[in-house]
């Protein structure tokens, strides 16, 4: 407030919205978060209190700092603010705002603490608090880990409540009437006599008042917006082709660029001959970038064509050139030298699993491949480098990393690096990396004053993706008296966190719990139960792929459990229920049992499998029915139940869960990235297909609201899907699929 009126006259650019005058509210009094970034760009005569609600004479803009890659993040964040602000969704616009430490991700901190999500002990909660402070300190504004809802659940609603109550105080000051007797609805304060004053009319006066404090959030029974299907804010634009993504952004004078960097990722470029490329129509420049070369042209296709015409001599890969060596590295990691964590060690596994009578022991090995993220919008970024300022337009999940890295590249102060976050055509974790922004900056630095749009060819995007980790698991278990008696699972993979954060110059101390995520924290009371994580050496660079460690481990853990249950002769669902001590987890299993009518088994030639995985704090159970047809396995039906505490938007929830299951199944049956001569062998969708519509099953979804903790649903539907499919195929055919992609072992329709 103290800076009111002292800011130079400037236009506040928030996404495509230019806010000419206004006031901003937030959760400032709730937990003082740090400097309000909205203050920096308001016009003279304006004021900004806090960072989430911006009101001016022409309307209300909600700041939704978590990026939208299609999961509906903008809408769901807006819903949470609007609920308490007493505005309706048709009255607001949203903006991702500007990168700022104030928008740090609280929930991601909780997820990084080394405790099971079911652990609510003082120690666990204290550690989560410390991690929160670390995230806050570093200002980690990151979209990921299914954290948008849990992160915003309190602070966004509080941002709305503080603004609403402060507007009432302003109305009181203006009219002399008691704010306690006022109500609010549809962006108006209603005075006791029924007079309505628009928020937009009160905004500037409200800015002069100390924000309201000590507010209570409304009980969910009073919600008007949350919990009710809403029309997504972007749905009309996305249904009419009018939504503009990063790839569509073209400032005046833009030039079109593409790059070719070493397909042996991280390897050097020994040299190149661009004679032919330079002679091609529309080509403006051929410029070096780290690890490769860029073509700048007057049209994207001309840049693509010229890039393909360059003759390049690539250096060797900084990782094993052939897949055999990758698998061997994992295989060689199952020993004490590589032991990274053993946070699950119940009973006496050494005794129970390794000193058991013959015929009771089950052993199995599992594999999961590298996977590209391959969002349908290829990687792109537009960068304009000036003398003392850089503008970046890009669909990024890590705007603060982009800022910091471009500051380093250009030597320009980080405060003058302006990142304008764009809508993403998918991500699945890809846009947690920032190669494309760095490369676009390298090109733009050589063309100062000209905006450069860098677009990857699909082939560049798929072969230079930082894929999901490759992983291997070995299980040994024992059954006794028709029950699972011992389960010992070892998982080996390189550290995703070390690879990913290493590219940001960070060292991640301690064990990487992603190596065992989706396995070690399962709420099962098996008498002898151990999960060991083995850190394999760094191989190909890897990154977070939708559900990260759990994407492989949910498959390993639950399929192995299924094998044991079958060996014990128990019912797959009943035995899981018997072993499950955590009530909300039992309830998701009971829900899918009911939804699928578990007790009535599908007929001849068909098979039904169940799987369970808790990840990101969300217990999810899935049942899948398949038919073994003469042409291969057909996936018929999927039933999913997930415990999320609260379903914020039922329609978006259903869509997200159905889509996530299809995403998971498609990759499970037919996708992998393999390296030959150090290069990814799959470079387009013909070799990395996923599910087509004709293969998509009917999927029924139920969101449960039994737990007190509210969780996000961007990822947790992924880990159980492949396991449920493998378990269903076993039920239908007797063939146990222990490796993804499954079409290496069995055909699919």
């Amino acid at each position, binding site marked *: 407030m103290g800076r009111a009126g002292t800011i130079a006259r400037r236009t506040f650019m928030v996404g495509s919205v230019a806010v000419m005058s206004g006031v901003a509210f937030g959760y400032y009094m709730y937990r003082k978060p740090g400097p309000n970034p909205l203050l920096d760009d308001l016009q003279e005569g304006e004021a900004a209190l806090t960072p989430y609600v911006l009101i001016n004479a022409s309307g209300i803009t909600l700041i939704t700092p978590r990026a939208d890659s299609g999961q509906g993040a903008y809408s769901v964040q807006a819903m949470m603010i609007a609920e308490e602000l007493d505005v309706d969704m048709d009255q607001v616009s949203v903006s991702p705002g500007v990168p700022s430490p104030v928008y740090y991700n609280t929930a991601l901190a909780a997820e990084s603490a080394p405790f099971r999500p079911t652990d609510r002990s003082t120690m666990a909660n204290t550690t989560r608090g410390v991690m929160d402070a670390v995230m806050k300190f570093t200002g980690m504004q990151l979209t990921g880990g299914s954290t948008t809802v849990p992160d915003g659940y309190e602070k966004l609603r509080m941002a709305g409540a503080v603004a609403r109550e402060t507007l009432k105080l302003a109305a009181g000051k203006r009219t002399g009437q008691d704010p306690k007797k006022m109500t609010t609805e549809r962006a108006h304060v209603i005075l006791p006599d029924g007079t309505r004053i628009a928020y937009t009319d009160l905004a500037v006066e409200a800015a002069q008042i100390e924000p309201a404090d000590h507010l209570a959030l409304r009980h969910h029974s009073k919600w008007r917006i949350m919990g009710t299907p809403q029309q997504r804010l972007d749905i009309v634009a996305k249904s009419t*082709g009018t939504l503009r993504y990063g790839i569509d952004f073209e400032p005046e004078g833009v030039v079109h660029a593409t790059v070719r960097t070493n397909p042996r990722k991280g390897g050097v470029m020994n040299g190149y001959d661009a004679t032919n490329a330079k002679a091609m129509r529309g080509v403006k420049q051929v410029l070096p970038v780290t690890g490769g070369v860029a073509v700048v042209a007057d049209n994207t296709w001309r840049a693509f064509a010229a890039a393909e015409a360059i003759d390049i001599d690539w250096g060797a890969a900084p990782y094993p050139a052939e897949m055999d060596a990758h698998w061997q590295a994992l295989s060689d990691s199952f020993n004490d030298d590589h032991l990274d964590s053993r946070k699950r060690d119940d009973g006496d596994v050494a005794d129970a699993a390794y000193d058991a009578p013959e015929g009771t022991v089950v052993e199995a090995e599992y594999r999961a491949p590298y996977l590209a993220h391959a*969002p*349908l919008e290829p990687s792109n970024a537009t960068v304009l480098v000036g003398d003392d300022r850089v503008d970046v337009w890009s669909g990024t999940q890590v705007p603060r990393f982009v800022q910091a890295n471009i500051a380093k590249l250009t030597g320009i102060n980080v405060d003058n690096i302006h990142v304008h976050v764009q809508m993403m055509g998918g991500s699945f974790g890809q846009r947690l990396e920032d190669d494309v922004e760095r490369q676009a900056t390298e090109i733009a630095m050589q063309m100062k004053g000209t905006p450069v749009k860098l677009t990857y060819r699909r082939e560049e995007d798929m072969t230079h993706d930082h894929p999901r980790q490759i992983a291997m698991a070995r299980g040994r278990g024992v059954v006794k008296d028709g029950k699972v008696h011992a389960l010992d699972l070892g998982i080996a993979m390189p550290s995703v966190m070390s690879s990913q954060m290493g590219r940001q110059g960070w060292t991640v101390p301690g064990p990487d719990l992603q190596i065992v995520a989706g396995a070690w924290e399962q709420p099962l009371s098996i008498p002898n139960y151990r999960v060991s994580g083995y850190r394999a050496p760094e191989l190909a660079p890897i990154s977070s792929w939708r559900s990260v460690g759990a994407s492989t481990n949910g498959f390993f853990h639950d399929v192995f459990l299924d094998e044991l249950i079958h060996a014990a002769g128990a019912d797959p669902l009943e035995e899981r229920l018997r072993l499950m001590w955590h009530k909300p987890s039992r309830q998701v299993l009971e829900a899918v049992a009911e939804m699928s009518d578990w007790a009535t088994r599908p007929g001849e030639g068909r098979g039904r499998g169940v799987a369970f995985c808790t990840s990101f704090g969300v217990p999810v159970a899935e049942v899948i029915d398949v038919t073994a047809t003469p042409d291969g396995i057909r996936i018929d039906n999927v039933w999913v139940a997930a415990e999320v505490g609260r379903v914020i938007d039922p329609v978006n929830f259903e*869509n997200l869960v159905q889509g996530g299951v299809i*995403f998971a199944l*498609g990759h499970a049956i037919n996708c992998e990235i393999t390296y030959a001569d150090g290069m990814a062998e799959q470079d387009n969708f013909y070799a990395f297909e996923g599910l087509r519509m004709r293969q998509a099953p009917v999927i029924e979804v139920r969101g449960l609201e039994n737990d007190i903790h509210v969780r996000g649903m961007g990822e947790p539907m992924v880990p159980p899907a492949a396991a449920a499919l493998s378990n269903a195929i076993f039920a239908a055919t007797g063939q146990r699929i222990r490796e993804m992609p499954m079409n290496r072992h069995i055909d699919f329709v």
Partner: protein
Amino acid sequence: MKLTVDGNPHDVDVEEDMPLLWLLRDELGYKGVKYGCGVAQCGACTVHLDGVAVRSCQTWAGDAEGAEITTIEGLGTPDALHAVQEAWIAHQVAQCGYCQSGQMMQAASLLAETPAPTDDQIDEAMSGNLCRCGTYPRIRAAVKTAAAKLSEV
């Protein structure tokens, strides 16, 4: 060469072998048409050429000479929606939405040819269009809603 896009006449000077996709996006500014794969594997670039759905990444500028091209923004607009777009909104099909321009153009072409498609016909016609977010169940439902709506008039 001359062509008409969404009712607008254009006269352009480009290579014969420039994909229609890039002619539309970069030369003429029709950004509703999307680049996904460049090799007719994903369908994001689908437009209508003289009323029939084609992959614009595998249609050459030379072949579009004199043609009537319709993009998603010519199919209907937020103020005057095509039945397919209306159904896409009603079912809230889109997640990231990047493939949906192509999905809707494919669906509109299917319904123009086959006004009351069976489930198999829908799957057959739509399986060339990838959706990485996995919105297929909603696409199926929306195609049926659009078919019903179109049969009313």
